[in-house]
């Protein structure tokens, strides 16, 4: 029998990909991966595909390029193919020609030229290669599911919890632009990004359903042996997306979303501990609000001594008790690019979350909640977020 694949790679392995062997440097590969993931999310959104379908497509995409080079397979063709296959697998099939049509709308003529003379044929041929490459491992799980599952167990202020989940949901969307799905199981990513969202939205989990004396933290109930270092590493990989250099974008690169550069610094401060060698203030831009201790302090020190910053600069930055807390927490997502929208789908394999519509806060991208049970239509403005917590 063929080799059993392991779809998780360590960081070293992620640097010796076919693309890197093909002379594509690591940062460029990461950018290509991000481009592909965004493109899948954009195209999928335009076609009313659900978040699961899009996420499945993105995972196929990342896996594909662990075996083939970006030089041999242009990323937008692969991305379209991944979305096409994911649509079928997730029981939300779309016609190949419609996907290509939607895809074309997001691409310059030069980029679309990579689809060749017969774009549909191109995608069909690639589908066979894709299937063989991913070993027909069609079913993939995503952090969304675990996010909702875990959130159900957390006790505390409902509204804050809701806000935290919404924020974590956005982080999960964005995490697809990274190689995290090639590094960690969706459970771990869900925990890490809930942890990050908890810090940012000041939702401290004090108690949870199913707690036993053995559980130090809520996630001990669900996953074992995750260190704080690991969780923070995952958070940083997502946060890196918001601080990527805007300089010298490649000519074929889509404009990056406005980088909310300051906010991520505060986010980092929220989760950075002393051993972290990153300099969280290095990216602070002028005039940006300085996060205050009121935001950080709460999350630091109580039961997590590791989070207490002993870094001088960092402390200076965050310890400013006189400064009033910003009226609005970091607005890092207010200018979220359109690809941040993903919608719970009406899908058989993954029933949409049920329950009251989300009480949307004002701090994060706010989209009108979908009318309960309304048909999923394209005319509606993007609805958002899970609601059954």
């Amino acid at each position, binding site marked *: 029998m063929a080799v059993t694949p392991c779809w998780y790679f360590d960081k070293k392995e992620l640097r010796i990909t076919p693309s890197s062997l093909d002379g594509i440097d690591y940062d460029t590969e990461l950018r290509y991966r991000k481009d592909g993931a965004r493109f899948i999310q954009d195209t999928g959104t335009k076609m009313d595909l659900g978040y699961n379908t899009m996420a499945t497509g993105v995972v196929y995409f990342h896996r594909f390029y662990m075996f083939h*080079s970006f030089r041999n397979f242009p990323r937008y063709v692969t991305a379209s193919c991944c979305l096409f*296959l994911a649509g079928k697998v997730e029981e939300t099939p779309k016609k190949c020609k419609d996907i290509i049509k939607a895809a074309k709308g997001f691409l310059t003529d030069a980029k679309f030229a*990579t689809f060749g003379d017969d774009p549909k044929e191109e995608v069909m041929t690639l589908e*066979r290669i894709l299937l063989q490459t991913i070993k*027909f491992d069609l079913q993939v799980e995503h952090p969304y599911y675990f996010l909702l599952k875990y959130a159900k167990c957390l006790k505390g202020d409902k509204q804050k919890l809701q806000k935290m989940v919404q924020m974590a949901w956005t982080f999960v969307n964005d995490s697809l632009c990274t190689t995290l799905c090639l590094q960690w199981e969706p459970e771990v990513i869900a925990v890490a990004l809930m942890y990050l969202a908890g810090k940012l939205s000041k939702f401290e989990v004090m108690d949870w359903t199913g707690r036993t004396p053995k559980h130090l933290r809520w996630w001990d109930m669900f996953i074992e042996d995750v260190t704080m270092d690991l969780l923070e590493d995952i958070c940083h990989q997502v946060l890196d997306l918001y601080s990527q250099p805007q300089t010298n974008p490649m000519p074929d690169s889509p404009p990056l979303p406005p980088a909310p550069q300051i906010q991520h610094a505060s986010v980092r401060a929220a989760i950075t501990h002393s051993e972290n060698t990153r300099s969280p203030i290095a990216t602070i831009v002028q005039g940006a609000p300085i996060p205050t201790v009121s935001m950080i302090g709460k999350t630091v020190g109580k039961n997590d001594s590791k989070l207490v910053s002993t870094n001088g600069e960092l402390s200076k930055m965050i310890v400013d008790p006189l400064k009033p807390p910003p009226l609005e927490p970091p607005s890092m997502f207010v200018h979220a690019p359109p690809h941040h929208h993903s919608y719970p789908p009406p899908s058989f394999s993954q029933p949409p979350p049920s329950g009251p519509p989300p009480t949307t806060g004002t701090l994060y991208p706010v989209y009108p909640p979908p009318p309960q049970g309304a048909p999923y239509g394209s005319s509606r403005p993007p609805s958002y977020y899970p609601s059954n917590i």
Partner: protein
Amino acid sequence: MMPNSSISSMINPVPGGFYKMNTKEKEKYIEEFDFPFCDEASKYEKITKIGQGTFGEVFKAKDRKNPAKIVAMKKVLMDNEKEGFPITALREIKILQLLKHENVVNLIEICRTRATLDNKYRSTFYLVFDFCEHDLAGLLSNVNVKFSLGEIKRVIQQLLNGLYYIHSNKILHRDMKAANVLITKNGILKLADFGLARAFSQCKNGQVNRYTNRVVTLWYRPPELLLGDRNYGPPVDLWGAGCIMAEMWTRSPIMQGNTEPQQLALISQLCGSITPETWPGVESLELYNKIELARGQKRKVKDRLKPYVKNPYACDLLDKLLVLDPQKRCDADAALNHDFFWSEPMPCDLSKMLAQHTQSMFEFTMQSRRQGVLRQVNTPWIAYFFNRKTAVHEGLTFYRLDLRSD
């Protein structure tokens, strides 16, 4: 396992700074790429063709490296596919990968043929399964094969076990019939053919599922499907299990309708008229008012099966499976707890009996089908129904209705 790096040096730039292999290069690349997770079908040597399904051909084959290892290879038909790899095959693969159980056929792997000029660089794919020596249809059509009561119990128990497992995993089989029930030479039953299977969800907050009702071979199709229900669930498979169970004694399918209305007529003759009294809610099914249903029929499941099925427990279980109202139909769990399986003679091993029939039943049935020696319609059971010309004729009155307008 990594692509041949010389290929990348031949890459041509296309406008916009993109690189792209030309057709030749791509063909070469595909031909040479050694997909680490997808072996070539040539690792198996075909022995004989054992089936021709709607979905594709099935071959018996042996592993060249380990000739003792016999497999069944089911070809994925892609010729008429406008939308690439068929969604039905994807479903079957996804479901088979999920289902790992003693009573579900085991998918070993998916193999490919190498892409070459000959196949226009389009690989063919095969689903490779552990080989099962017998199928239940073949065994039942072979008069030399005799099941004792204990052996019948073991067959049905395993069938229900498999159903219990797949239903717990939220999968509907949707194509229950004797031909899709395989049995190994060791007497282990395997549910096969998940080509029509799909995941189901309990409908929530008033949302209604809209599954296709054009599933399940007509003879095993439950009344709710025949009446156009699109929000069905596990009971559809238990109806099929009931039909198969009865067939263990009758030796051929118990209700062999030619059309959907006729099938409904046969069902009414056995299970009684379909009315809102016996089946609350039936009136809201799409076709209930569009089809003229037989009226005044009494339920005669036990009476009619008694001549074949002497064991009262067996009759009672059949009576609980062949229930019109899907909500009242027995589920797999309840069926497994039925006294039928917990009374003497207890279920017993099949391997000894099967050892007497070494000729693979596929070969037997294939050969017999070719020679036309198999009884199909002339079984006593069927005669029993078809002799009642008038009853069937009543069923024929609504043939003219076009039910195919989906």
